[in-house]
């Protein structure tokens, strides 16, 4: 498996150079350029407006928002009451905490085991390399399905334990293959030099391979972390203890099953109205962290698609 191209999109590509000297192509070409820009701008609007709407609505005066009809372009009045109520909600706080524990703990375990697996399977002289590889790759194509997995977790006594959403997802075969490819690409000389200095495999992994493959490791780690951050389904089926609910499950209650009641106490007038702004504020609070780090992550994500997307 190799990466098809290492050119980052957005960087100066041969195409960009080609484009600069391309002659204008008459009226038809100009019309096409205008239409193209128009279509893409419209797409950007459609993509971005829902986020903008949610932010603006969350800052609005609840009753004024209810009265407003049609496209919302700026906050109707201004109120931070919804954010206050979201912040005061113990479920939101514990959800945040639980998600943080899962993301940090889960991702650490993911990375450790994926590094071990990728390192072991990048040893071309290992006697069981091929069978072990087949053993792992096969799981990408066939799985036992939801029910046997559920029964396994139940029989292991993991229901209502954080392990239930960490252990069954400890290694992703896909990520392991990506990291293995990166390890294989490391020149053998580094390893030989370390061995002559008396390093064992653990030292070589942690002091040679991991530092050399840090960018790939970052991408793989981000994939794991985002999956933990966004996951709700398995917490939904494995957790009944509300103290364990991660933020996405709390969000589901507020947004999908529509229960903002616990946060509406004391809001006799305009109960329905404040319920709406609470929803928007919840979305903002739950999406903000990922949006805040998004610009910094973007280049990693682009690299990640390139690493994982094309194989030979």
């Amino acid at each position, binding site marked *: 498996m190799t990466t098809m*191209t290492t*050119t980052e*999109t*957005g960087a100066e590509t*041969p195409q960009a150079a*080609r484009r600069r000297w*391309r002659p204008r*192509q008459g009226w038809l070409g100009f019309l*096409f350029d205008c239409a*193209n820009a128009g279509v*893409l701008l419209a797409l950007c609007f459609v*993509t*971005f407006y*829902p*986020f903008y*709407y*949610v932010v603006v609505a969350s800052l609005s005066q609840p009753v004024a928002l209810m009265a407003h009809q049609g*496209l919302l372009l700026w906050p109707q009045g201004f109120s931070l009451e919804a954010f206050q109520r979201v912040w005061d909600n113990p479920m939101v706080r514990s959800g945040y905490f639980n998600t943080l524990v899962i993301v940090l703990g889960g991702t650490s375990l993911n990375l450790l*085991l994926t590094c*071990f*697996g990728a*390192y*072991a*399977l990048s040893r071309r*002289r*290992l*006697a069981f390399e091929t069978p*072990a590889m087949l*053993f*792992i790759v096969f799981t990408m*194509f*066939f*799985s*036992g*399905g*939801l*029910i*046997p*997995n*559920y*029964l*396994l977790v139940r029989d292991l006594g993991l229901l209502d334990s954080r392990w239930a959403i960490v*252990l069954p997802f*400890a*290694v992703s075969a896909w990520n*392991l293959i990506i990291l293995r490819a990166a390890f294989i690409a490391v020149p053998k000389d580094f390893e030989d030099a370390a061995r002559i200095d008396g390093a*064992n495999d653990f030292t070589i992994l942690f002091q040679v391979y991991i530092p050399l493959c840090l960018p790939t490791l970052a991408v793989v780690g981000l994939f794991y972390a985002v999956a933990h*951050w966004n996951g*709700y389904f398995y917490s939904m089926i494995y957790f009944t203890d509300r103290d364990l609910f991660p933020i996405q499950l709390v*969000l589901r209650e507020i*947004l*999908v099953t529509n229960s903002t009641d616990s946060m509406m106490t004391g809001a006799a007038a305009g109960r329905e109205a404040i319920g*709406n702004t609470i929803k928007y504020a919840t*979305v903002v609070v739950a*999406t903000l962290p990922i949006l805040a780090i998004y610009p910094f992550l*973007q280049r990693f*994500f682009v690299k990640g*698609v*390139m690493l994982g*997307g094309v194989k030979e």
Partner: protein
Amino acid sequence: MSAPLPRRAGRLARLKQDWRRNKWVYAMLAPVIGYFLLFHYVPMYGTLIAFKDFDPALGFAASPWVGLDWFRQFFHGLFFDRLVFNTLLLNLYDLLFGFPAPIVLALLMNELTSSRFRRFVQTVTYLPHFISVVVVAGMLIDFLARDGVINQIVASLGGTPDAYLNNPDWFRAIYVGSEIWQSVGWGSIIYLAALAGINPSLYEAARVDGANRWQQMIHITLPGLAPVIMTLLILRLGQMMTVGFEKVILLYNPSTYETADVISTYVFRRGVLEANYSYAAAVGLLNSAVALTLLVVSNRLSRRLTGNSIW
């Protein structure tokens, strides 16, 4: 490091040497293999409950075998046609509209003359990919509600408001539309990279021959993208039996089961919610088997037709 043994040495001696040389490697590999064994292969073995009348009180081994009873029950069941039809149709629509969307987006972005504008479009369109499915579903529910933004706009244009998420006619459009909204930008990354890999001298040659932009796209750009498109298409075809059921579960309700209920959601309801483990496992196993077959067939087909395959 000890030198490899000569070829004449016995198999056992070689294994011994391998063990001496790689014992730390095996120590690392052991937990990984253990993980796959426990959490992937044990559930595969566990699918045997599809052929048993699994009784939690008796346990796995003691539950009686019932052969293909559960499969028969599903085939003859009330929902068989509906579930298979919904699963395939939802996938077909997603394939028809969702698969070309990132290709079109990449082609349009590729024609942009300003690289700053292109980066702006990319940054904005990637964004929804990182929003959790719960938030996406929440926004959809809110915007599509009877008094939601969409209906306010519809009403102001003179249309009649509708409770879209309670109307089975709208479910597929909502599902596929939101899927495209969330993934089109992210999906286009890989095509943009492939476009960047096309040799610019091909375009120069074409221009010298008098090809216009449209002809350049048909004769150079699309053939250049073909291998990537083919590979991704195979992967997609192999997933014809799996839909993003996490989203379906958040968006559907009994009034839209008619078009929204798919095999995975049915397995979830019958298995996890109603504890009909054996029946749900049988339905799930059938689904996985068909999915695996589709993947193998489409891969073989692609290798024969285009020389591209994923293994």
